[in-house]
């Protein structure tokens, strides 16, 4: 048992907060639930060995890479992917606690699964390259992107289904974007920039809808990915179609930011509020510089930015109050 917990228990027993029986039950429970000293040492050795193995692998691969045959490079990538997947699965079984730079062992396994996802993508790319080089298959570069992105997306979906952790959520989103981009590039090779922006808006909206339906968790990450993608798409679309009408472009972005602020209140989601607030802080000064003479705008910008920040603070407080009330 941890020294701190033992001291607290003794303190509570002495002051009569808990009786002797409860004290003994807690001590017994803690002793049984805690891993014994031997298993602690074994796990520590395994972890340290794993870290050495990983860093040695990462250090050695770049040195050896160019001297290896294609099949050896592929074998190395597959082995690395499997090792990362195994390490992530193994670390899933650890009891929760702080580890290295990670807040919890859950984050460790999530991070390892993410790296295995990248490694898996590299393995698929290499496999396709080898098949192309050996003339077993003959596909264009655009088609190969579709295949790679599809396999990586499937793997990311499996990992997300398995863990539901934040890195897998983010990986699933970006793998979906990669896949849609690859398919879009194949079907519409001469796509106009605004159409690319529209696709981004659609992808962000789909992510938002599925976050709202609680299919995607945590909700803050789902809404963050959704709102940032919609914002980027809107900027691309507006810049391409309304590039000459600066004031209208800025007004649309301000209206969009206000909609975000409103949505954040409705959904009690701070991250949407931050994105909306950022949009207002950026676009209100832009609007002022467009419509007012030069010497007026510096104090007015300060006034408006200050106003926006005050509103942000007040709204954040109201969201917190809402959350408290809901609890």
């Amino acid at each position: 048992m941890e020294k701190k917990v033992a001291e607290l228990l003794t303190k509570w027993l002495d002051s009569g907060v808990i009786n002797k029986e409860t004290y003994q039950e807690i001590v017994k429970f803690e002793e049984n639930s805690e891993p014994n000293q031997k298993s602690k040492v074994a796990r520590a050795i395994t972890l340290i060995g794993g870290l050495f193995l990983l860093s040695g692998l990462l250090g050695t691969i770049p040195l050896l890479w160019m001297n290896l045959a294609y099949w050896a490079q592929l074998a190395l990538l597959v082995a690395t992917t499997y090792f990362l997947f195994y390490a992530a699965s193994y670390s899933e079984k650890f009891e929760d606690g702080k580890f290295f730079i990670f807040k919890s062992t859950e984050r460790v396994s999530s991070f390892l699964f993410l790296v295995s996802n990248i490694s898996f993508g590299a393995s698929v790319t290499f496999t396709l390259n080898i098949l192309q080089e050996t003339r077993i298959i003959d596909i264009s570069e655009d088609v190969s992107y579709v295949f790679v992105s599809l396999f990586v997306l499937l793997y990311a979906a499996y990992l997300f289904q398995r863990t539901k952790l934040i890195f897998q959520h983010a990986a699933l989103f970006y793998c979906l974007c990669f896949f849609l981009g690859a398919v879009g590039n194949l079907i519409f090779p001469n796509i106009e920039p605004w159409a690319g922006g529209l696709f981004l808006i659609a992808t962000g909206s789909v992510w938002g809808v599925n976050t709202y339906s609680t299919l995607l968790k945590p909700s803050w990450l789902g809404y963050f990915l959704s709102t940032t993608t919609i914002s980027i798409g809107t900027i691309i679309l507006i810049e391409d179609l309304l590039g000459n009408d600066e004031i209208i472009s800025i007004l649309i972005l301000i209206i969009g930011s206000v909609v975000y602020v409103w949505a954040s209140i409705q959904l009690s989601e701070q991250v949407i509020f931050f994105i909306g607030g950022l949009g207002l802080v950026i676009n209100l000064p832009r609007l002022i510089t467009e419509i007012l003479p030069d010497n007026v705008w510096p104090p007015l910008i300060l006034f408006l930015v200050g106003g926006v920040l005050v509103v942000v603070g007040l709204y954040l407080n109201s969201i917190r109050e809402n959350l408290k009330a809901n609890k």
Partner: protein
Amino acid sequence: MKKQNFPLFLSLAIFLVTTIIVAVFGVVPFPDYGILTKDIPLKGKLIYHVEIQSENLIPPAPDIMDECILSIDLSSNEFSEEKVICGSDLYDLSYDIYFYDAQINEDKNILLRYWDESTGDEMGLIVDRDSGRVLDKINQPNYPRQQNNMNVYGEKLIDPWETSDYNSRVIGVYYVNRTETIEVFNSRAPARYYFESLHWSPDGNHIVGLDSENNLIIFSKNKKFSPVEIKFSKLNLEIFDDEERIVVRLLGWTD
């Protein structure tokens, strides 16, 4: 069950509607060109600057592996590319050859500027446009830049940046005579498509341009034929799998 599936159906509907909008309004095809054949009698040589670039994606990318001046004889039976000179041929002289400043001089040979390490000064090379032989080395090659936009009739080509409306996806080639602006070509094109390096033919009846897709396009001033693209029967420069061939600039059309 129905409520559970609603987000999925809504997602599919969003993608479907977006795809339809993009398919109908968001895709502008490249202008349609014919292929140059021997039926169109053209004379002279096109001289252009090509870069061989590596395809590595890791910054700083791409690396320029070599630069060359190439030519194509429009009056020959086949449109095969001929090498005039490459940077790698001149490594004995200098590694700093300014191919971007290359120009055709009054004698219709090629002037290449370079940095001469021995003198610590900019020098010039006169290169024979047919054989690629260095004819002369000159100090202070301060020749005026050629104005290729005027033909033998005094008609002036308008810079395509001035006449093309990229926002409305329209691209054009125009020239002006003494009284009016005359359209040679006008077409819808993707926003990222553009012409550069427009040049008159020596007889002043044709225009050649390099487009953003690395194609050399020939226009008839009087619209005697539709614009045609040059398809090389044979490329002179051999490149490796991980290299790319980029036509950087058209130097001119010599007789």
